[in-house]
């Protein structure tokens, strides 16, 4: 599973990175790296079976605390 994640990200980097380097797009490179890094870390965590919080549960909880729910 982790191997597949690695392979997938390698492909993405191979698609995007050379073009960015060649065109000398600095800012784009930085943003790309940050986003890809975030995605990579999360994917690895998921692949390792780490329990991440569910977004909708968090949202429901938050809004219930705020008292903003229908009935």
């Amino acid at each position, binding site marked *: 599973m982790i191997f*597949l994640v690695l*392979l*997938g990200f390698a*492909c*993405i980097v*191979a*698609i*995007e990175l050379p*073009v*960015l380097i*060649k*065109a000398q*797009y600095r800012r*784009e490179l930085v943003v790309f790296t940050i986003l890809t890094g975030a995605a990579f870390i999360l994917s690895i965590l998921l692949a390792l079976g780490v329990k991440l919080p569910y977004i909708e549960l968090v949202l429901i909880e938050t809004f219930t605390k705020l008292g903003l729910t229908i009935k």
Partner: protein
Amino acid sequence: MYEESMVMKKSWIWLCLFLLSGFTSGCWDRKELETLAIVSGIGIDLAQDGENYQVTFQIIRPDAVLGGDGSAGGGGGGSAQKPFWALKAEGETIFAAIRKATFESSRRLFLSHNEVVIINEEVAQKGILPVIDFLIRDAEPRLSQWLLVTPDQAGEVLQIENKLEKIPAAGIALQMQNYFATSKVRAVSLHEFAAQLLEKTTANTVPVITIIETDGEKGLRLERTAVFKEDKLAGYLDQKATRGLLWVLGEVRGGIIVLDLPETGGKVGIEISGATAKISAAVKERPLKLLVEINLEAILGEKTIKQNLVSPEKISFQEKLTEEAINSEVEAALIQARQLGADIFGFGAYLHRHHPKEWKGLQHEWERHFRQLEVAIKAKATILEVGLIKRPAVPFRE
């Protein structure tokens, strides 16, 4: 410059990605045809202990169905093989029974092509919601399969070979769909049953199938109608009352009404060609008054007497007799329904839909209101055709 084409040119990496995603997916849901046991009928009985269910699956044997008398294939000795196999399994629930059946079956049971669900009387008396729930919840079974009740063992029903069809369950389904030849059976699909379960007040009706024996050979016959209150079997309607029910529901499509002619003692068969029903209510009055208007179009089908009946007066006389016959059938249905306290006609649903305000006051004690309900029947029969001959085959002047 950053050009899209530069990215797209690396099509080999895209290809790589696709292959990658192809490998990640490993065909979990793949089910080859030869690994499926196509179930055509399900029968549900109570097991010996009275707690668990015993479920019978009628599984189609494709090559036996197709091979017929061993013409194809050339050997293999399949001619003696029945085209189906009745597999029995016990379980605490239906689903558990299905999974247990895999102990005995080399193939995975495939429920999508199931056509009939036959439920034993005892199971029906206990309540059939547990059965229905699985059949609605699971992705495989369809909502259009037919529901039947049998006083015999459902497992036995599914083992009886049909005289014409290779697959008995398909035969039963066809038998049901032929109801318009008599209009004395009310075919009910799973969907209709579930829909009426949701309508708090309406009682469900389900046709009854029984095993008969003629000349030592077993066969199946549709007769009567089972009445459910909520999901529990409450009682039965006879065939006359069943047609009475269908008149009110406007579901009569065909059939014969046999009239006794009062003076001559002969009989006339009136063939139904179409009927409609319309309900209206006087909601303000207590007890409630309902009017059911039934409009029938019919054909003079046969007669047993010599007199010529094709004259305006005689035809209108027959129309009157027909109307009376309809009245008595509906009356029968009403009486039997009142006895059971089961609103099989959906009068409650009618009031709910058309008179929602008044319904609010009625719905809590609907059973009481239903028993007291006054139903007026206004049948109107029209004989449109008289067949191919205009007078009986007797010499013109005697």
